[in-house]
C-alpha cells in the first residue's frame, strides 16, 4: 500500500512530514520525499493534510490495484475523496464530517 508524490505540485510546506505516523516523509530541496515506499502504512494522513493535492493514495499491484489515484480535499465541513481511475475517469465521494457512519 502506498502513496505517490507529485513533486511539481509540492510547495514544501511540510504538513505531510509533520503528520506521517512513521516519519516517512522528509523535505529535501524544498520538496517532500518519501524515504521508502515499502514502509508506507497507507493511513492517508499525508494525503488529507496536503493543501495542494500533491500526494495521492494508490493500491499496490499486489493488493489488487489497477492504476487509480485517490486524492482528498479536506474542508471545514466535508472531506471529499477524488478518485482518478487509470483511464482518466474522475469520481468524487463527499463525506460530511458531522455525519456518523450508518454502519
Amino acid at each position: 500500500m502506498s502513496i505517490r508524490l507529485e513533486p511539481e505540485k509540492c510547495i514544501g510546506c511540510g504538513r505531510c512530514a509533520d503528520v506521517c505516523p512513521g516519519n516517512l516523509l522528509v523535505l529535501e530541496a524544498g520538496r517532500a520525499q518519501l524515504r521508502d515506499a515499502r514502509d508506507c502504512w497507507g493511513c492517508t494522513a499525508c494525503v488529507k493534510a496536503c493543501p495542494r493535492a500533491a500526494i495521492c493514495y494508490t493500491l499496490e499491484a499486489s493488493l489488487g490495484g489497477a492504476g487509480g489515484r485517490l486524492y482528498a480535499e479536506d474542508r471545514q465541513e466535508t472531506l471529499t475523496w477524488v478518485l482518478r481511475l487509470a483511464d482518466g475517469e474522475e469520481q468524487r465521494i463527499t463525506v460530511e464530517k458531522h455525519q456518523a457512519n450508518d454502519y
Partner: protein
Amino acid sequence: MNRREDCADVLIIGGGAAGCYAALTLAEERPELSVLLVDKAGIERSGCLAAGVNALNAYITPGHTPEEYAAYAAQDAAGIARGDLLLTMSKRLNEVTRRMEMLGLVILKDADGRYAARGWRNLKINGENIKPLLAAAVRRAANVRVLEHVDIVDLLKAEDGRIAGAWGIDLRQDAVVYLRARAVLCATGGAAGLYRPNHPGAARHAMWYSPFNTGAGYAMGLRAGAEMTSFEMRFIALRCKDTIAPTGTLAQGVGAPQVNARGKRYQAAYGNTTSERLYAVVSENLAGRGPCFLATHGITEAQERSLERSYLNMAPAQTMRWRETGRGPRTADVEVEGTEPYIVGGHTASGYWVDTARQTTVPGLFAAGDVAGGCPQKYVTGAFAEGAYAAESAARYAASHPLPEPTENVAKVQVRVERLREQSSRPSLYDVDALEEAMQQVMDEDAGGISTAYRYTERQLGAAAQHIARLTRLSEDLRAADAYGLLKIYELRERLLVCRVLIAHQQARRETRWHCFAENLDHPKQDERFEKYVNSRLRDGRVEIILRDLVGEGERYEHTFRA
C-alpha cells in the same frame, strides 16, 4: 550528536489513544503537575488511530452492565484475563465516551438523542478525525508539553530500582534526549512487524496494526526488569482480503453472513469467540472449502453507498478497491483472510503485568492501552479508560516521591548512542532490512505465522529461539549514518526482544487454549493445569517464566512490593 535534557513530574511515553487521554486527565485533574508527553511521530495522526476508527467497540449500552462486559471479555479469552482490570476498565467506558463527544467526536444518535448502538457494546461514530481531536485538546492543555518526533529507546532507573525517566533520539534534531521524571507512564502501543506480513515486498506495511508500533514499550520494560503477561496470546485479525480493512462493518453493519466457497454458512460449527471466528476461516481453507467471504451480494444501492463512506472514514483502500474494480459489495461478496500475528494488549491480554492502579512491577512506572496486559477487548475506549487510571495513579505517585537520580547519566547514554554511529571493528554483512526479513521469516515458519496456518510444534519453537538468538547477535553489529538509521536499528532490536520473549511464552503454555492465537500441535487440547497466567521477565539476561494464579471475578491483584 547534540544532547538535550528535560524534566517533569509525569513523563508520558507515547501520545496515542492512551497517552493523549492520560495527558488530558492530568490537565483536568492535576493542573499543578508538569507533564511531558513524548511521541516518536507527530501526535495529530500517530499510532493506531491514524486513519480513523470505524466504531467505539467497547461501550456499556442501556440495560447492560460493566460486569457483563468484563465477563464477556474474560470468556472470549478462555479465562486468561484479569477480572479486576476488566471490571475497572469497563466502569469507565461510558465516561470517556462522553468526554470524547465533548471534544467533538460525532456519535450517531437516535430520534430521542440517545446513542445508536451497533449490537450491545458498540457505538456508531464518524471516527475519521478522532486522533486530530485528541491532539488538539492535548495542545490546549496548559500543564502539558508535547515533544514530537522523539523516539524513546530506554527507561532510566534509580539505584533503589524506582523509575527515574527515559531517554531517546530526536529524529529531527539528531540529538540524544534525556528526560527525568518522578513517575513515568508507558503508552507505546503493541508490536507489529514481528511476523512475515500478508504482502511482503512493495506492500509490506499494508498491515492491520500500526507498523510503527514496534513493541518499544515491551522491550524497554523487559530491559528494566518489568514483568510481562500472556505474550503467547497473540492477536490475529480477520480482515477483508488484501486491503486488510475491518470486517465488522460488513458483518454487523449490513448483517452479511460468512460463507465458504460453496456458499455454506460455516461459523456455527466452530463457536463464536474472536479466535474461533478466525479458526473457522483457516479450517475451511485447509479443508479445501475456501476462500471464505462475507456475503454482501444483493445489499441495496443505498447500503453500498453508505458502506463506501464508512470505509473512507477508516480504511479508504476498501472503497478504492470497490470503485477500481467496478465490483462493489452489492455485486460481489467480500473475501476475508487472517493477518499475520501481532502482540497487542488492547485486543488480547499481552503486555505489562499491572495492578489495578495500572502500576507495573517497576515502582513508579505505569502502563495503559495496548502495551498493558491482562485486559483484552479494551479497544479505543478501554485505552482511554486505562489512560485515565494510569494518569491518576502516576500523579499520586509523583506527588509523594522526590525526583530520583538515574543510575545512568546523560554522558554515558550519549556514548552508548554514538557508538552506533562509528565505524564498527566488525562491519556487518547485513543491513536492518535483511535482518528484519530474516526475523519475520523465522517467526512465520517456526513460530506459527500465516504459512503454517498459525500452528507450531515444540521442535519448531526451539528452532525459532535459536534463529532469533543468532539474529540478535547480528543486530549488535549494525551501525547507522543518521538519526533515522538509529531508529531503524532500535526498532529491529525491540522486535527481536519481543520475539524472544514471545517464543518463551509459547513454549511455556503447553496446551492449545485458543485456536490460531496459540495453536500448539504437540498439545492440541485445553489443559486445566494451564488455567494460569504465563508471565515473564528478564533476569541476568535470561527470560524467566512465572506461572501465576488466575485473578477471577470479584478478586483483586495487588503488587506486594512497597512503592
